[in-house]
């Protein structure tokens, strides 16, 4: 499942752009590959993020996986519901399983992200 209106990274995060803010999470494909998510670690509100650098961690029973920020900016909000109940990342990765909301410092970085069609190709190539 890949949503048309989102931007994607090669590392399987999505970004939903609303004005100068972006909401970020991991894709359906990412949660499926991870399996049952049992731990989510997110940055503190106010932290500065750089595009393509790690901002947190998701862990399944078997694996530890870094989260990479699609864009640079400041963390406005984190989804503490996902921290408290990591299973929502599996059940609703594009909705209640979102991770963080970023105020973008350089929105032109969005141009280097993948479109839904390009991300779909990437996922299909790894299958």
């Amino acid at each position, binding site marked *: 499942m890949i949503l048309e209106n989102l931007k994607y990274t090669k590392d399987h995060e999505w970004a939903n752009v609303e004005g100068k803010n972006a909401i970020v999470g991991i894709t359906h494909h990412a949660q499926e590959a991870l*399996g*049952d998510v049992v*731990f989510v*670690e997110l940055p503190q509100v106010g932290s500065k993020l750089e595009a393509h650098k790690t901002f947190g961690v998701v862990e*399944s*029973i*078997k694996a*530890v996986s870094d989260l990479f920020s699609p864009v640079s900016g400041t963390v406005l909000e984190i989804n503490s519901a996902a921290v408290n109940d990591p299973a929502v990342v599996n059940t609703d990765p594009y909705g209640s399983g979102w991770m963080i909301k970023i105020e973008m410092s350089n929105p032109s970085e969005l141009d280097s992200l993948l479109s839904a069609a390009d991300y779909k190709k990437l996922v299909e190539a790894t299958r």
Partner: protein
Amino acid sequence: MLKRTALHEEHLSLKGRLIDFGGWELPVQYSGVIPEHLACRSSVGIFDVSHMGEFFVEGNFAKRFLNILTLNDVSKLDIGQAQYSAICNERGYLVDDLVIYRRGVDRFMVVVNASNTAKDFRHIKSVQESFESKFGSIDLWVTDESARFSQIALQGRNAETILQSITEIPLKKIKTYWFSEGILLDKIQTVVARTGYTGEDGFELYIPWLDAPRVWRALLAAGEKFGITPCGLGARDTLRLEMSYPLYGHELNESTGPLEAGLGWITKLYKEDFVGKSAILKMKECGPRRKLVGIKLLDRGIPRQGYKLYLPSQNESVGEISSGTQSPSLSQAIGIAHVHSMHAGVGKKLEIDIRGKRIPAVICETPFYRPPYQSKLK
């Protein structure tokens, strides 16, 4: 090219997620580690463990040889009985842990870890050579029969009822760590052992290689009304971890001796001789440097192999995690760790370095989990 078990097609049709496990292509999960784990705990799970190695040790000298080769006392083993044991090198370090099944007066089957099969066989052959150079030409036959046996584990409180529906072998009579040989379905000759690696009641079935799919499907059909669930390597690992059963490559390795790995109970130092005995006696004299302990995290995080342990706000590491996970039964992060003997007491507060952050943890009693119907554990 990865090796495949006879159940490969079954894993594909069950949509198992296949991974490379020590050269074997095996499912890490089917429906998910957590549901598989919980199904095994609450009812019954079925596992393909055909990658395990099986050796035959046979002949007049088989028992004497195994008593030299392994740590436990093989002379205590009756026909039809199984014994958990391990092998060490001359330096007293663990080569592998294993189970010995005594099938006759002079006939034994030794089941070893898949990834160690080749190494173990070389080790056993070299011990056999030195044994023969001492005793001359003797009646002792050691063969690797791994390619002839599939192994299916059926684990959980409903295992007996399900298995009984496809065999005439009176399963109730098989006690824990005993086995019986007989027929499954119409004519499949099988070793049926009441053993396992989950802490649940259950069986491990040694089946002629190509007959495994028929047994697998028959058990799935017979178990349907009990919600039988195929379980992958992921659930196998979380189930054994909740029982704090050691796993070679994690708790056990060639820089760990049996006493510091908590295997003192199978290390029979009263035996006249066995490979590694003098080195292990020395380790005993000095006292083991470190111990294997169970730990629980007191804050959020998941311990993983290699994470270091510290005394609170100290900088010198006092131990290292060998296995860790989020326990599906307890919804609690648990781990097994090698910890310096001085700091290895139950109740001891420690800190784990998880990606640069210190997370508080405490040494706790093991097993972490006890199946409610099991009064005492083997």
